[in-house]
C-alpha cells in the first residue's frame, strides 16, 4: 500500500497547469481544484488498496519491439505537411525565439 497523498491543493493545480503549458485564472484554479479533488477522492478506492506483488499492466498486449521490414517506402509529402503548419520559413517549421539574446 502506498502512502495516502495529501488532498489536491490550489497550488498543486497551478503547478500541473504550468507543467502542462496551460494558463488558468483564479476562478478556473478554484473550480478545477474542486472538480479534480472530487475525481481523486473517488480514486481513493484504488489508491488505498494493498496491491503489493501485483504486476502493473501498461498495455493490453504483450508485444515488444515490433519491427517492419527495412525497405524504402514513400513518406508524407513535405509540401502537404508544411502547408498545415501555422508558420513556415524555408521549408522548416518556424517558432518564436527559444533562447535569449547573446550578452
Amino acid at each position, binding site marked *: 500500500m*502506498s*502512502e*495516502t*497523498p495529501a488532498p*489536491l491543493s490550489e497550488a*498543486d*493545480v497551478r503547478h*500541473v*497547469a504550468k*507543467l*502542462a*503549458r*496551460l*494558463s*488558468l485564472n483564479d476562478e478556473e484554479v478554484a473550480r*478545477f481544484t474542486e*472538480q*479534480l479533488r*472530487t*475525481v*481523486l477522492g*473517488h*480514486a*481513493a*478506492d*484504488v*489508491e488505498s*488498496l494493498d*496491491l503489493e506483488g*501485483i*504486476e*502493473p*499492466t*501498461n*498495455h*493490453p*498486449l504483450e*508485444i515488444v519491439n*515490433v519491427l*517492419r521490414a527495412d525497405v524504402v517506402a514513400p513518406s*508524407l*509529402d513535405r509540401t*502537404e*505537411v508544411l502547408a*498545415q*503548419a*501555422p*508558420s513556415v520559413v524555408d521549408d522548416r*517549421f518556424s*517558432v*518564436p*525565439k*527559444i533562447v535569449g539574446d547573446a550578452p
Partner: protein
Amino acid sequence: MKALDIAAQVASKERSAREVLDETFAAIDARDTEIHAFLSLQHDRAYATAASIDERIARGEPVGPLAGVPLGLKDNLCQRGETTGCASKILEGWRPPYSATAVTKIEDAGVVIVGKTNMDEFAMGSSTENSAYGPTRNPHDTSRVPGGSSGGSAASVAASMVPLALGTDTGGSIRQPAALCGVVGVKPTYGLVSRYGMIAFASSLDQIGPFANDVADAAALLEVLSGHDPMDSTSLDQPPVSLLAQLDAGVAGMKVGLCSELLAGATEEVASAVRLAGATLEAAGAEIIEVSIPELALGLSAYYLIAPAEASSNLARYDGVRYGVRVDADDVTAMNTATRTAGFGDEVKRRIMLGTYALSAGYYDAYYGQAQRVRTLIISAFARAYEKVDVLLGATTPTTAFPIGDKVGDPMAMYQSDICTIPTNLAGHPALSVPFANDASNLPIGIQLLGPALSEQKLFQAARVVEEGATK
C-alpha cells in the same frame, strides 16, 4: 435503410450510388439543423466516389462489399485533405496529409464518406456536450444528449441520415452513445482494427469501431475494418475477421454470464431489459449463469487515472508548431501556453491536468502505479470469469439518455455513465451494445455483450439473437 440492402441494390443496378447519395444529403439537409450530428459535409468528394462506383458497375467491373453505402466519419479519424479536428478549436481547419488505415479500408470497400461527425473534444466526454462546436441532440428526444464521445456518429445513424458510421471507443465512446441513440455499436478487440490515423486520446485503450442500424450491418463494416496493418505496431497479426457467414449460427449451448457488477447503478427499467435479454438468449438455447466480478467496480477509478495520464502525454503534441492553430507570443514557451490555453476546452484541460498530476513525482505510485495494478486485477478477474462462461451480459449504460446540461457542471457524475463500458477497454477485450427495449419515456435501452479477446464471432451470434428478441 440497411447498409447491406443498399450495397445489394447498387451492385445490381437497382439504384445508383448517386441516387443513394442524393437521398442521404436530402435527409441530412432535412434533419441535421436540429440534430447537429455533422461538423462538416464533403459533397464533391462523395459524389466523385459515387460516380466512380457507378461507372465501374456499368462497365461490369467488381466493386467492394459496401459499394455505394454512405457513412459518417468521426472527426478524430484522419482523411487526407478533409478537415479533421477532433471537435477542438486547437485543430480547427487542419487537413491531414494522410488517411487513417480504417478510412482507406472502407474507401477500398466502396463506402462513400459523406462528412465528419461531431464528438466530445478529443473524445473526452460522455454526452458530446464537450464539442467546441456545440452539442449533438438525441434524435429520440432533442432535449437530451446522444451520449458520447461518438455522439454525432450514433445520432447520424439513429436519425436515418446515414446507414453506417465510424466511431472510437476508449472507455465506452461507441457503446454508450449507441445505447442512448438506439443503434448497434461495437468496440472490437484491442489491435483488431488499426489505429493508424486515429488521433490518439489514450493509446492503450483506444479502438475504432462501427455504428449501424442492425447487427448484420455492423458485422459487415467490422469485417472490412479488421486486419493487420504494418503502420500500427499494436495491430494484431491476424487476418480480417469473418462474421457474416456465422451470424445466424445461434447460441445453442453458449454459456452467458449475467454479471451483477454490470447492473450496478442501473435503473430498474435498464436492469429488467438486461434480464429479459438474458431470457431471450436462454430461450434460444443458451445457458444463463449468474456471475459476480467484484474487481470491475474498481474500473472507473483506474480508468480516470490511466486515460488522463496517457492523454496528458498524447496531447503534449498540440504546441502550435506543426499543425492546428497558434496564438502568437514573444517566446516559444509563452506561445505554447497561449495556444493550448485558447485551443483546449475545459474537459480537455481537466484531463490533461489530472493526468499530469497522476504521473508527477510523489503521486505516481499512489495514482498511476496503483491504477496499473488494478488493471492487472481486472484482466485476471475477467480471465477467471471466461473459464466459466463464453460471454458476459450486462447493461451498456446505467440510464437512458439524460437531458442536455444535466451533468456538465459535475464531471464525476458524467464519468459514472461509463461505469459498465470501461472494464472492457482496460482489458483490451471486445464488447458491443444492441438496442433491446425502450423505457417509459420511449427512450432506447441498449444491452451489452462482452467477451474475451477475439471473441467477436460469438458476440455477434449472441447479438443477433438478442436483436431478434428485441421488444423495442
